[in-house]
């Protein structure tokens, strides 16, 4: 049982807080991603968990035992963890099999068992036929599998991954992220995965921790994170969105250029995150009351358009408004710039977010 717990964790670099008061608990066997832009503190957090960086404040514990605190650090080699590095860090002076067996031999396991486990692991990652090759003879994806095999074969208490796919090309990245999830489903190792790529996080993770400027913005499963972002940062970072910032007087919410019924929104600033696919385009205000009846209707003009194959991407500006909204429409919906349309904004799919700093 490996429950990983971060408690009020912080790390200063000089006077700059790289990680600021982060608290997080992973249940046994859980797969959690740390997601955020570069410099958000996710890698620092991971390296603190690994024991390469000492926290300035707070503690890290595994199954109740404290392993990191500003006073005391268990050395990385005594943490029973594994890590996959951005550079893979496959040792070029050892063969594939030697790389994978390394952690086992350090554990003073009988050589017959080392060999058996290594071979089993190599066949799990489909590298059995390459076991006597040297890393320089492998492709990027194969090296990645060696790194996975080497990390998992020791059955670590916690598996750490530091942007493991960032050096692979796009197709391979898609393949490997499914591979990582498959291996997790097979071995059920408590895993922390650092990435700046939201789709990687969404494919692999049970829960995602969105970080920004050293702090946790939100922790949630992928669906909630997308549909119910709690901060403007999360809404903007996970997928594309439109922010509608308005002011409610109790009966109506006044946005830039149009207003809609308040529907229970109390008086005061009212901001919403609306995904491009939550807005639909119509030639006229629809009679189809059933589907779009209680949507927010607004008349608008098509400002720009781009065809992306899977959908059309439109920039549409409500009449009397300065704000352009991103709207996606099925490939068959072809509109030209300058055309006047009606937008139906489905506010049940919109998420209430804090008002921007300036209005608050």
């Amino acid at each position: 049982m490996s429950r990983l717990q971060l408690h009020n964790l912080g790390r200063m670099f000089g006077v700059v807080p790289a990680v600021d008061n982060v608290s997080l608990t992973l249940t046994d066997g859980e797969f959690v991603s740390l997601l955020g832009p570069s410099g958000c503190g996710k890698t620092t957090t991971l390296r603190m968990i690994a024991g390469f960086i000492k926290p300035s404040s707070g503690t890290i514990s595994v199954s109740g035992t404290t392993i990191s605190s500003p006073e005391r650090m268990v050395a990385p080699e005594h943490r029973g963890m594994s890590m996959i590095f951005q550079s893979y860090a496959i040792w070029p002076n050892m063969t594939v099999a030697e790389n994978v067996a390394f952690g086992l031999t350090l554990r003073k396991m009988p050589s017959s068992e080392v060999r058996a486990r290594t071979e089993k692991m190599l066949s799990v990652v489909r590298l059995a036929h390459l076991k006597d090759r040297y890393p320089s003879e492998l492709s990027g994806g194969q090296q990645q599998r060696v790194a996975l095999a080497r990390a998992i074969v020791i059955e670590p208490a916690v598996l750490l991954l530091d942007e493991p796919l960032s050096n692979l090309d796009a197709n391979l990245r898609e393949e490997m992220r499914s591979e990582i999830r498959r291996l997790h489903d097979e071995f059920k190792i408590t895993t922390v995965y650092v990435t700046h790529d939201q789709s990687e996080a969404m494919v692999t993770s049970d829960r995602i921790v969105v970080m920004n400027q050293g702090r946790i913005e939100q922790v949630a499963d992928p669906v909630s994170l997308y549909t119910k972002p709690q901060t403007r940062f999360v809404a903007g970072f996970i997928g594309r969105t439109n922010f509608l910032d308005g002011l409610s007087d109790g009966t109506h919410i006044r946005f830039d250029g149009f207003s809609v019924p308040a529907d229970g929104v109390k008086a005061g600033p009212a901001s919403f995150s609306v995904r491009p696919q939550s807005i639909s385009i119509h030639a006229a205000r629809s009679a189809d009351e059933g589907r779009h009846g209680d949507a927010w209707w607004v008349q608008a003009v098509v400002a720009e358009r781009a065809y992306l194959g899977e959908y059309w991407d439109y920039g549409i500006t409500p009449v009397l408004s300065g704000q352009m909204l991103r709207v996606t429409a099925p490939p068959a919906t072809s509109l030209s710039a300058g055309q006047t349309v009606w937008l139906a904004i489905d506010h049940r799919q919109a998420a209430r977010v804090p008002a921007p700093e300036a209005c608050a």
Partner: protein
Amino acid sequence: MRRFDPLTIVWVLLAAILAFLVINPMLRLVLSSLQAVDTGDWTLANYAIAYGRPRYIQALWNTLMLGVCVTALCLVLAVPMAWAVSRTDMPAKGAIKLLTLAAFVTPPYLGAIGWILLAGPNAGWLNQAWMGLTGSGEGLFNIYSFAGLTFIIALYSFPYLFIFISSALDTVSSEMEDAANVLGCGTLRTMVRITLPLVLPAILGGAIITFLEAIALFGSPALIAIPARFNVVTTQLLQFFSPPVRAEVAAAYAVPLLLITLCLFGLQRRILRRRGFVSMTGKGGERRIIELGPWRWVLLGYSAFVLSLCVLLPYAALSQAALAKAWGRGWHLDNLTLDNFAYLLFRHETAGQSVLNSFYYAGAAACIGIVLTLSIAYIVSRRLLPGANVLGFLCMAPIVVPGIVLAVGFYAAYAPPPFALYGTATLLILAFTTRFLPVGYAQASAAIRGINPEMEEAVRILGGGRIVAIRRVLAPLMRRGMIGAWLLVFIPASRELSTALFLYGPKTRTMSVMLLDLSEEGNFERLAALGFMLLIATMVIVAIGFRFVGRDFMQRRT
């Protein structure tokens, strides 16, 4: 409360070693120059003596002139060749590079000996040829002159400049030149207006180093200037060290040389720090070869001419003399003999020993230096200890100390009791270690920086300690780099002259000192034979380096 870290002991130990090798000798040099020798009182009397006579001032002037002339001549030799090899379609580039490398590894004093055989007044081969051709009763060249000294120092200094400039040229993207060509600029004008200005910082930086090397040189001036009856700073220092030894005057006399070096080195670093434009545009830019047409043969001729002056002719003269009963009789079968070698190795009192000494001291200095610099480079690059940068700085500090000045410092620090190390092998080994510490450190830290720290972290997270990481991963990965670093310390240490000169004793002569002694005897056949052995040994070692480390191991800029 911080746990006591065993690494602290390592830090203290390394700091103590560096204090012994670097700080103390320099401190003693300056202090002894300011103290009266018998009373120990503070005084400027030593400086008054050191600069009290016109001929001492003249020697300093000669040194500065020599430095300027050598640098100018080196630029003339190196710039066209570097440009030709790096940017044009001149043929036989590989051979040119190889011969330049041969010139680079040739000890300058060996070249000087070769040139004494070639251009000694009247007897030299070139003078003989001239007299034979023209019927003139007098030779054309006299190597025993200021011009002669300038010429032979430049011949063996320009390869450094060549390597420096051509590696800078290698980083200039052809697109820079293409951009000028597209706007209607011709080849020559592009070179003058675009390419050369881009590498100007490198040229200036290399020129400063050339100047510093030239003024610190001892061997060639000893062989040429002393018979020609003029002095430079280094030969003047030798005279202060001749009985009666006036080490404190020598120290005072050496301090300005140290200051000049320090200032110019600082200047060089500043120039190269602003190099910006060259190194930034270098990566990935494709390089196009400039087609010269018939001019490429002109450049090849020029390069071949220069290299025959510094490699082919002197090597030929040296090997002829080494294998001759009397070198003046030329290449005849009955003039051939191996007796010169046999005499040196078996019959001479100290010559055989000096060969062994040279390799023993160089090997020991290389081993100590590599262990020391690797430990420090590792600690610095992994930020294991606060204040580690100070150790790195101390390792690089001897780079501003001319070898002969270092020797004066070591003499001042360790010749008197309680150390009383004068004339011992220990002192020579330690002095060599210090002298080449910067070379070793630059190599060691490059080797360590070349290895991603994640390689070690991967060991540690899987359960191996730092020692396992170093033994199983770091050491195997750095093996090539370590051999390269070892060789780059060993090669110059095996022929170091100026540092050995004031520190050797009767039993601790090195090959380089032995060569100088033999030259005073005037027996050129035996002198050439010893030089020949040194040359062969150097070539063998360089070949080993090629084989195990790679072709470019001598030419990486530090």
